[in-house]
């Protein structure tokens, strides 16, 4: 007999096995997570919406199908999952963290959500995020920040701080995220969790509320590499409803992750350390843990070489032109006509005045900042100098990747330059906030996949440090192999997952917090 406490700490892969064996029911597993949300989410605020009744109903349905011996149940049937609020869900509000979409329930499911349902996973609810995924701290959510489970005074990263905090606080075994410039990998780094940005086009974006269409990618968030791989296998693959979806067939990411745990998995693997993303500008404890991880990889048979990516230093500049330009266009759809908020100016007004008043009231400061910046970058007289030049930098960064992947199998960097900073610390300094995505942005600009996983705690503050691996486009499976291999080495040293070292969260009871 398992206690509810055991159930929330199980990786999704183990929970799935227990469900398949009939040892645990999906209703028990779902209830355990709902109880955990009830107990800690008042402090963490990972969720914007919790669908308790619907989750329990679906769980009961999966239990019934299993009892009937249904052969059509997927390997993750009955496992609970959290969904970033940027993804459209038929039965839950989908706000993308914005006031302008408060209470909006979409008329369709995102393809990735439909795939979760078809695989009989149990959506627990929608997770918090920076408004329209613009931010690195989740402080730009219109519904208040999410807090880092390691230290409630610190940021959980962003924009997907809700999904990362939900898995790190054991409020879900895994979750869906989206990554436009690091919104999956940077939150993973600062919360001691795992996250993957797949190859651009590897996972459907149909029904993902668009931020920057040439950069956005949906991906998994979890506590173990294998769990991200299992979720990736469910959501990945071609979708005719997304014109940027790659029509390839993909290998099993879960098999690739399992291969990483075999003896000799790293033998002969060539791992490139990006010269421009190491040392200067990184917190001492981040560099220390990163260097130790390289030594471990080398000890396990990998060959570590330094590679030069001279144009990576232009990545943030290019990103903050391309992203606002695309966002200013994508967010034009919030016009107070077809969905979302409408604010009528005093005394009425034309449809244009209603639109302007609505967008003034419905968008937060970071969204306004980026729309105005994007409008500027695209305006006549500046287009060639800014947007045009940024697109050229994109070519140069792709060439840097091509040259590097001619020499190595994967690239490696720290996932973020620092550990979790304090809430409010960078909120009033947009450029300081933008620099948090220094190491993650190049992958989005080039469309290549990246994985982030924890490599220990920084000695100076006791907070999680993450490492990022990047692979050539379409070689996502390689990331799961190297990620799982390093995770295995580290967990042997730690005697268990890093998250078991996280402080216990205070648990709210009916009588208050104790």
């Amino acid at each position, binding site marked *: 007999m398992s206690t509810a406490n055991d159930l929330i700490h199980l990786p999704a892969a183990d929970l799935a096995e227990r469900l398949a064996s009939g040892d645990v029911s999906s209703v028990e597993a779902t209830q355990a997570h709902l109880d955990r949300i009830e107990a800690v989410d008042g402090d963490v605020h990972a969720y914007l919406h919790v669908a308790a009744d619907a989750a329990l109903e679906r769980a009961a349905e999966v239990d019934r199908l299993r009892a009937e011996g249904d052969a059509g149940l997927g390997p993750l049937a009955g496992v609970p999952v959290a969904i970033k609020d940027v993804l459209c869900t038929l039965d839950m509000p989908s706000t993308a963290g914005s006031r302008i979409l408060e209470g909006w329930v979409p008329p369709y499911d995102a393809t990735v959500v439909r795939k979760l349902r078809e695989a009989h996973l149990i959506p627990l609810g929608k997770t918090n995020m920076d408004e329209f995924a613009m931010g690195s701290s989740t402080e730009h959510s219109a519904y208040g920040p999410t807090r880092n489970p390691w230290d409630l005074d610190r940021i959980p990263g962003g924009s997907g701080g809700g999904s990362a905090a939900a898995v790190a606080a054991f409020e879900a075994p895994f979750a869906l995220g989206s990554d436009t410039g690091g919104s999956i990998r940077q939150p993973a780094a600062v919360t001691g969790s795992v996250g993957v940005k797949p190859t651009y086009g590897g996972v459907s974006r149909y029904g993902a509320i668009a931020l920057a269409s040439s950069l956005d990618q949906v991906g998994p968030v979890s506590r173990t590499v294998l769990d991200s791989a299992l979720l990736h296998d469910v959501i990945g693959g071609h979708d005719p409803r997304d014109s940027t979806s790659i029509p390839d067939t993909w290998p099993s990411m879960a098999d690739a992750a399992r291969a990483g745990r075999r003896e000799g998995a790293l033998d002969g693997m060539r791992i490139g350390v990006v010269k421009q993303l190491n040392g200067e500008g990184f917190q001492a404890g981040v560099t220390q843990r990163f260097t130790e991880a390289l030594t471990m990889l080398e000890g396990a048979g990998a060959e570590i070489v330094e590679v030069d990516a001279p144009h990576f230093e232009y990545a943030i500049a290019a990103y903050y032109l391309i992203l606002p330009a695309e966002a200013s266009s994508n967010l034009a759809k919030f016009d107070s006509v077809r969905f979302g908020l409408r604010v009528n100016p005093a005394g009425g007004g034309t449809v244009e005045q209603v639109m*302007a008043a609505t967008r003034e009231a419905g968008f937060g400061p970071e969204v306004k900042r980026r729309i105005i910046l994007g409008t500027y970058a695209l305006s006549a007289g500046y287009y060639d100098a800014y947007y045009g030049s940024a697109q050229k930098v994109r070519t140069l960064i792709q060439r840097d990747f091509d040259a590097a992947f001619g020499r190595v199998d994967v690239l490696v960097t720290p996932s973020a330059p620092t550990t979790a900073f304090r809430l409010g610390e960078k909120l009033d300094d947009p450029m300081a906030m933008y620099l948090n995505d220094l190491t993650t942005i190049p992958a989005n600009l080039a469309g290549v996949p990246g994985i982030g996983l924890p490599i220990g705690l920084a000695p100076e503050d006791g907070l999680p440090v993450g490492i990022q691996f990047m692979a050539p486009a379409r070689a996502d499976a390689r990331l799961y192999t190297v990620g799982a291999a390093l995770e295995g080495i580290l967990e042997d040293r730690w005697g268990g997952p890093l998250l078991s070292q996280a402080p216990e969260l205070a648990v709210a009871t009916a009588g208050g917090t104790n």
Partner: protein
Amino acid sequence: MSEISAEQVAHLAHLARIELSPEEIESLTAELGSIVDNVAKVTEVATPDVPATSHPIPLVNVFRPDVVGETLSQEQALRGAPEHADGRFRVSAILGEEQ
């Protein structure tokens, strides 16, 4: 230093259909100036011989068969609208008095 002025920000806000307050225009003018100064470094390496990349993984001719697919019903399409009437989205006047 970039040359972004308050008048320019007000004009951009009008183009983007956001009714900014005077305080917002003031803070955005300073912030955008600083951001533009930082991102302008793209021009250092964007020489004429470098082609532009608009999409990371280029795909061409992505079409679907020219047949009616699943569509939303009128009711579904209107369900999220702030206001609708007679099966249509309802908006206020398109033209102002001076037009």
